[in-house]
């Protein structure tokens, strides 16, 4: 930078270059006035002159950050605790490195990064067919379940990962191993061989899957319920039958998931339904407590019992249909059908009350839709074993049936319709007075 012209103060041409710390200045030698000054050294100016190079451009390999190192340590300790193979550990570390530096995870807070390590281990296990649940990993990491869920969903989406789902039958063995039922850790009456327990539990699990108790549900409560049932049935003595699910989990030193008791009730109901088909149990009153004694027989013949129960149910349903159609043959009303079907097939007509319908052939009337449904009822018998939410639906609040509006979107809007949404000046003044009083009193 060159000085431009003489000094404006004294007119002298003796201008020298001087610097105040790092700022260059042109100063008049005679009067000392600062004629002009340069820029303070900035990275911007120096970059323009290519004096400074950004760290990210340096060819040297960058050291991993602290968060990265902590995440890798977390992964290694998880893999050692759970005794994973080196394959899983290596693929978790590679995945973590890729995910950590992804923009979606790089600037997130520490809790998410902790959960990221666990999610990488989970993905690596899934890809290597190693059965483990997200609950186990979040329990070991002491991580918040919701954060784990969000991070896992984001990880799979952002990195386009394929994660095959875990098969519950693979999980059952590791779940049974976590129950401390060896002779050294509990009384002899309660101790059980893990192999036998896992085998009986996997049979019960298959039955539960066949009867809609598994699909869409959290896996751990079902596994706990199934393990308890298998423990009861392997030695159905009075002292075991008197132990509840919660006490069993205390004996085995395992936490009780909240929905496990509901799953147990559903499983016991299924076993009771099937047990009624056994010839040597005809006349015996089966209830939830006593069904454990006959579980072995039910499981042995479960295929036949399932087919028999469904065939019997279908025959009963057809007989009822015939009786009801004979009774109503003179009337023009639609047949009602048995209560179980109503629960399942009337739901679409109940739901129709709450919204509009898009149907190519209907005119949008509920009556016509119910007519269609009753025709379906006649032709199709529902299954004996339905998902429990269909068998015992929640009592829905009856929404007020809004008359269907024939709207086109471009109708004229009357002033009277709008006036109901606007307060009159008197109402506004009253509101202001009320607010002022509230402010004073508070």
């Amino acid at each position, binding site marked *: 930078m060159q000085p431009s012209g003489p000094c404006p103060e004294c007119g002298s041409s003796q201008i020298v270059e001087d610097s105040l710390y790092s700022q260059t200045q042109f100063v008049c030698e005679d009067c000392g006035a600062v004629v002009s000054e340069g820029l303070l050294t900035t990275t911007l100016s120096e970059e323009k002159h290519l004096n400074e190079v950004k760290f990210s451009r340096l060819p040297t390999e960058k050291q991993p950050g602290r968060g990265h190192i902590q995440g890798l340590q977390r992964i290694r300790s998880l893999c050692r605790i759970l005794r994973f193979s080196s394959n899983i550990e290596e693929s978790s570390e590679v995945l973590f490195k890729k995910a950590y530096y992804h923009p979606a995870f790089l600037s997130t807070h520490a809790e998410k990064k902790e959960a990221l390590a666990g999610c990488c281990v989970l993905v690596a296990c899934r890809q290597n067919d190693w059965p483990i*649940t*997200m*609950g186990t990993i979040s329990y070991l990491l002491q991580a918040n379940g919701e954060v784990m*869920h969000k991070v*896992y*969903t984001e990880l*799979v989406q952002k990195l*386009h990962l*394929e994660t095959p*789902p875990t098969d519950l039958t693979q999980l059952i063995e590791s779940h049974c191993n976590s129950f401390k039922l060896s002779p050294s850790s509990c009384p002899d009456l309660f101790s059980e061989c893990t192999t036998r327990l896992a085998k009986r539990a996997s049979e019960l699990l298959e039955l539960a899957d066949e009867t*809609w108790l598994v*699909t*869409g*549900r959290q*896996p751990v409560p079902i596994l706990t319920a199934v393990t308890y049932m298998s423990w009861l049935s392997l030695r159905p003595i009075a002292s075991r039958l008197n132990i509840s699910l919660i006490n069993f989990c205390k004996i085995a030193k395992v936490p009780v998931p909240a929905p496990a008791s509901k799953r147990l009730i559903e499983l016991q109901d299924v076993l009771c339904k099937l047990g009624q088909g056994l010839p040597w149990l005809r006349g015996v009153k089966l209830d939830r407590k006593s069904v454990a004694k006959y579980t072995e027989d039910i499981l042995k013949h479960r*295929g036949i019992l*399932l*087919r028999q129960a*469904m065939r019997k149910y279908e025959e009963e349903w057809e007989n009822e249909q015939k009786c009801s159609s004979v009774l109503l043959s003179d009337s023009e009303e639609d047949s009602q059908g048995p209560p179980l079907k109503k629960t399942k*097939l009337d*739901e*679409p007509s109940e*739901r*129709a009350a*709450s*919204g*509009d*319908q*898009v*149907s*190519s*052939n*209907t005119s949008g009337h509920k009556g016509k*839709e119910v007519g*269609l449904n009753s025709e*379906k009822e006649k032709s*199709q018998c529902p*299954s004996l074993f*339905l*998902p429990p*939410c*269909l068998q015992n639906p929640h009592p829905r609040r009856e929404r007020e049936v*809004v008359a269907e*509006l024939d*709207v*086109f*979107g*471009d*109708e004229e*809007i009357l002033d009277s*319709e*709008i*006036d*109901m*949404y*606007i*307060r009159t000046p008197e109402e*506004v003044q009253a*509101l*202001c007075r009320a607010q002022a009083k509230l402010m004073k009193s508070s």
Partner: protein
Amino acid sequence: MESDNDVALDIIITNVVCVFRTRCHLNLRKIALEGTNVIYKRDVGQKVLMKLRKPRITASIWSSGKVICTGATSEEEAKLGARRLARSLQKLGFKVKFTDFKVVNVLAVCTMPFEIRLPEFTKSNRPLASYEPELHPAASYRIKNLKATLQVFSTGSITVTAPSVQFVATAVEQIYPLVFESRKTAR
């Protein structure tokens, strides 16, 4: 919507979300004071919630003039509700112009007459389908070209989210053969 010669499926629209702009600044305090059925949300992202009775719609109004309406059960109803709202704002004294109206999301429910085996459905439709029972009881299926997301439940109920009613119908037509293959068959 008939997607099969023998079956008539009813698609029930439960929610339509639309947006429009008023092209003028809105004084939220004035709307809260002079409007009925109004809630003033002063927390993060200040906005006003205004509810209409007929059609049953809830509108979120920002001071920039952007308005989002939810709760309608058809696209026409959403437009009518949005126009009623714009008219109410006009009556309150703002120079409102009803512009940039667009339906952004339609949520519909459709029930299949059979139960669906979700693990089988997911296996045969990877990677578009994903099923994580620990996260959510339904399998989710994305159709990229329709920008539609479907949640398939084991009971046979399917929830469809798409940008318009036509896309919803197309999505249901596309998913029907896929879920039909994974239906529960009698033993």
